[in-house]
């Protein structure tokens, strides 16, 4: 029983550490990855037939 408790604790510690380090890695990796963010202000949706004059594709 004691051994199972010890293994459970060990697993929990590994999971916590793993999750923290994984989130940290993701956070810093994502630092240079563009996420489609907040909805912008001041725009309008127009028909699909309109001429486009935008910049590059994502």
């Amino acid at each position: 029983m004691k051994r199972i408790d010890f293994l459970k604790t060990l697993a929990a510690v590994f999971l916590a550490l793993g999750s923290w380090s994984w989130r940290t890695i993701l956070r810093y990796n994502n630092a240079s990855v563009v996420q489609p963010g907040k909805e912008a202000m001041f725009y309008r949706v127009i028909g699909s037939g309109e001429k486009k004059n935008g910049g590059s594709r994502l």
Partner: protein
Amino acid sequence: MSGRVVQCLICPKECKLAEGQRGDCRSRANFGDKMVTLVFGAPCSSHIDPIEKKPLYHVLPASRAFSIATAGCNLHCKFCQNWEISQVPPEDIRHLPLSPEGVVKQAVMSHSRSIAYTYSEPVTFYEYTLETAKLARRKKILNLLISAGYINPEPQDVLCQYLDAANIDLKGITEKFYREVCFATLKPVQDALIRFKKNGVWVEITNLIVPTLNDEPKDIKLLCEWIFNELGPDTPLHFSRFYPMYRLKNLPPTPRGALIAARDIARETGINYVYIGNLDTPEGSNTYCPKCRRLLVERRGYWVVRNQVRDGRCPFCRETIPGIWS
């Protein structure tokens, strides 16, 4: 994918974007029939600067301005002095998460009396600027916009409610210069300057003098006359020295004489506060009383050596010195 086109209305370019396309500024895009900002809460630069670096010489001299920028710009000036961050898409440059609350918190912690939206072009990170400015105002921190002023009237009027001061680049005085060198147009910038003034935002102007492109004395004269007539003689004007950068590495730095000549033209036109930036000149950064000509604020580079303005007035002749002094 629904394939509808959205039109950005933040700046006079008014880009029309198909699904997945992004605007000329590279930081606003059409995602599922919605315009989204790609840089909200993701500054590529954050720094504590002396307010003199903005430059804003008539706003809280010697105070700190917590300064932020994100990648992108809606202009593409060939002489851009910050092109590494302004002329790249956000994914090409490292940025870290910093929410509007985080910006204000860091400004408070660093004893900054203002937050400057600067370096690249805050019009392209409008939502981030606006949200941060609202929070900053609650904490009595000033909001400073350092911009090319290429913005549509409606978003400008909303932003002006939270702005205290702005330094706007008036890059030249001819449409030709704006079209050929900046890939923009002059008229919207002039209109925006007038609107800033009407909205009660303290305005200072920067003009970067680029050899052979906008350094003709007749053009400098025209620029000064426009400022004098439309914005008034008390609008501070900063002539800034160009250094070879970006797509204009073939040009030399602005000669010292050209900057001094420009300052003389501005003074002859009647502009009361004229400064020279990016160049170490004795007196070039000093503020003098336009009435009694005594030295009021002595500056060396970005540092204020002496500030004698008291309650917004000259201590010698009691002339009002316009600006935000306390």
